[in-house]
């Protein structure tokens, strides 16, 4: 697609010019009926073409490289083409309707997608949560009773509570301390920060693999322990520990993975905030005889409190929805490491119980709302203060 470096609109363009490629069909002078027919024909052809390509994309025998190339081209160019065609169709409308319709062409697709994929599902999930496993009969609040009585679900709620307290607490504390410490380095600040931040770029699945190797366990007599932790233990002459089966400590070991991934985020954001604390205030405190720790505790931390709150909320919400780590590390039920989002997938997708899956999703949704409200209120207060 062109025109990225074009600095400004070109004045010589005709008012109805449709964009980078001029429309092939002459639109002026044709009778409206013919024009309308042309528009319909072009749109129909476009839809048919897209449909054919989607058929091709399902063809399992096609060459993968070609297939992927087509998929990327169609997906990326198709959406632009769709807007271009709709805009072109609007241009063909009688003059007095055009500018009334055009805004809806611009926002329409977004609204339709959100309505179908978010608004409708929210209502639908609430209804599903009141139904049975197949989503046919009505069972009232039975699924919710299950959520709050089943021992595995209760454990999931307990574990999730642990996640939303420990992960943000440790992540933000370490991130804050690290940001403050690197701020005082003469050299190497950029490298140190990049290395801490790096795990943020990889997937939860990748991170789970990385840490499975750290926690890897083989019973005595079943080969050398190649996991780092048990390697250290054998080096010290101790017998290996099956780390991931140590209920309830295994929960902490899984939380470590998320802390490892997200501390970098907290550190980067907090570091930017620390650097924006005015020097004068810090100097003044120092002249008054404050120690470095007092400066940090009494001046830096209060100044960046809003940022700390934001980062904490972000981490709370992420911890609430943790799924991949627990799921990929495996056997949550045996190891008693269930969490709410993981149970939701377990019941809905693996055990095919839509009612229970729906109820768990609704509980998760309701749990997130207060955090959000607090977050938004806090954000508004900040706006007012400024």
């Amino acid at each position, binding site marked *: 697609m062109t025109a990225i470096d*074009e600095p400004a609109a070109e004045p010589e363009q005709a008012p109805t010019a449709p964009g980078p490629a001029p429309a092939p069909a002459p639109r002026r002078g044709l009778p409206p009926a013919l024009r309308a027919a042309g528009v319909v024909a072009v749109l129909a052809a476009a839809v048919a073409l897209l449909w054919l390509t989607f058929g091709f994309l399902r063809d399992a025998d096609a060459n993968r490289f070609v297939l992927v190339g087509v998929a990327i081209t169609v997906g990326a160019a198709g959406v632009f083409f769709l807007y271009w065609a709709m805009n072109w169709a609007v241009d063909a409308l009688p003059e007095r309707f055009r500018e009334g319709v055009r805004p809806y062409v611009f926002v329409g697709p977004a609204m339709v997608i959100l309505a179908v994929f978010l608004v409708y599902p929210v209502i639908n999930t609430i209804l599903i949560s009141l139904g049975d496993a197949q989503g046919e009969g009505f069972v009232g609040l039975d699924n919710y009773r299950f959520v709050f009585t089943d021992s595995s679900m209760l454990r999931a709620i307990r574990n999730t509570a642990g996640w939303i307290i420990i992960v943000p607490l440790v992540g933000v504390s370490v991130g804050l301390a690290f940001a403050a410490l690197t701020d005082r380095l003469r050299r190497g*600040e950029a490298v*140190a920060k990049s290395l801490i931040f790096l795990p943020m770029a990889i997937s939860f699945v990748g991170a789970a693999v990385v840490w499975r190797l750290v926690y890897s366990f083989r019973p005595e007599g079943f080969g050398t322990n*190649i996991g780092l932790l048990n390697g250290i233990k054998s080096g010290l002459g101790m017998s290996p520990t099956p780390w991931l089966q140590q209920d309830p400590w295994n929960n902490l070991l899984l939380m470590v993975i998320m802390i490892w991934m997200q501390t970098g985020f907290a550190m*980067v954001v907090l570091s930017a905030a620390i650097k924006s604390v005015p020097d004068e205030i810090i100097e003044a405190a120092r002249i008054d005889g404050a120690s470095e720790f007092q400066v940090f505790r009494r001046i830096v931390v209060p100044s960046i409190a809003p940022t700390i709150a934001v980062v904490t909320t972000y981490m709370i919400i992420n911890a609430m929805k943790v799924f991949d780590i627990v799921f990929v590390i495996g056997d949550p039920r045996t190891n008693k490491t269930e969490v709410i989002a993981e149970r939701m997938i377990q019941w809905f997708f693996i055990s095919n119980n839509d009612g229970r899956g729906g109820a768990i999703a609704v509980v998760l949704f309701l749990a997130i709302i207060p955090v959000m409200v607090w977050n938004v209120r806090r954000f508004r207060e900040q706006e007012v203060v400024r």
Partner: protein
Amino acid sequence: MTALPVEPANLAGTGTDVGSAPPARPKGGAGDVRKGGWFPRIAVLVVVVLWVIPTLGVLVTSFRPEELADSTGWWTAFGHVFDGGQWTLQNYRDALDAGGFQNAFLNSLAVAVPATIIPITIAAFAAYAFSWMDFRGRYVMFVGVVGLMVVPLQMALIPILRLYTRGASIGGWTLFPDFDLSGSYLGVWLAHTAFGLPLAVYLLRNYIGSLPSEIIESARMDGADHFTIFWRLVVPLSVPALAAFAIFQFLWVWNDLLIAYIFLGGTRDTRVLTIALANLVGSRGENWHLLTSAAFISMALPLAVFFALQRYFVRGLTAGAVKG
């Protein structure tokens, strides 16, 4: 998704790059009493080492021959760094071909590129309309979009999967025909688009809405229509915001397991990298030589993006930090 803690101005603005020192305040002078000292240096070093060791273990293991990787700890390899028999590329060859990770890599690309471009395009058009066009329901629609950031995607999974596999109808009326989208690229693109849209619309509206109105007005005076203004003027001016969100969304989609797992499935033909990797973890028996090389294949692109586009990457993350 949560609401907007990060100021939208940050998206294009200053200050949150991983490494760069702040431009406004050079306090790195040798005379600065706050700099230096042994404590910060040692503490930083300890944390960095702790953070790097797990990844290092995977990296080293991925280059060790199967028998060695399985029988000795990866740290022992440091005792024979220059012994050629200690290192191999065979694991990567095996993972790519026999393990099917080449195919999975292509699938990840086919999912992630459109699932990045589609929501950005749709969001940019909507953001332009919300900023510079007058129409009824503008405010209500925008507030509605922002409100949808609260919805965790778990809320949407069951109904969307049902739409994909059965369609939807009330009485005899078909509201949403059964397109059989489950297991297709289009189905995953649409799901990712929907989950990325609220945040994208919100951030882009803040950015596009803050462009100086004189530019837009004068283009209108010169007779440019909305489509031209959008494409020739607003999009080029919004490149920083678009790039930041694009990187965030791309990594989010690339690293996603849940949506791909539910809507694309785990067959060898269609599965993406995260699913292939998760399956490899799940299959019993510890093929650490395969698992580690596969993990690095899945991390290669995000890490490249991370190192090449660190500045945009951080902006995108801090702006998009709050997606669900």
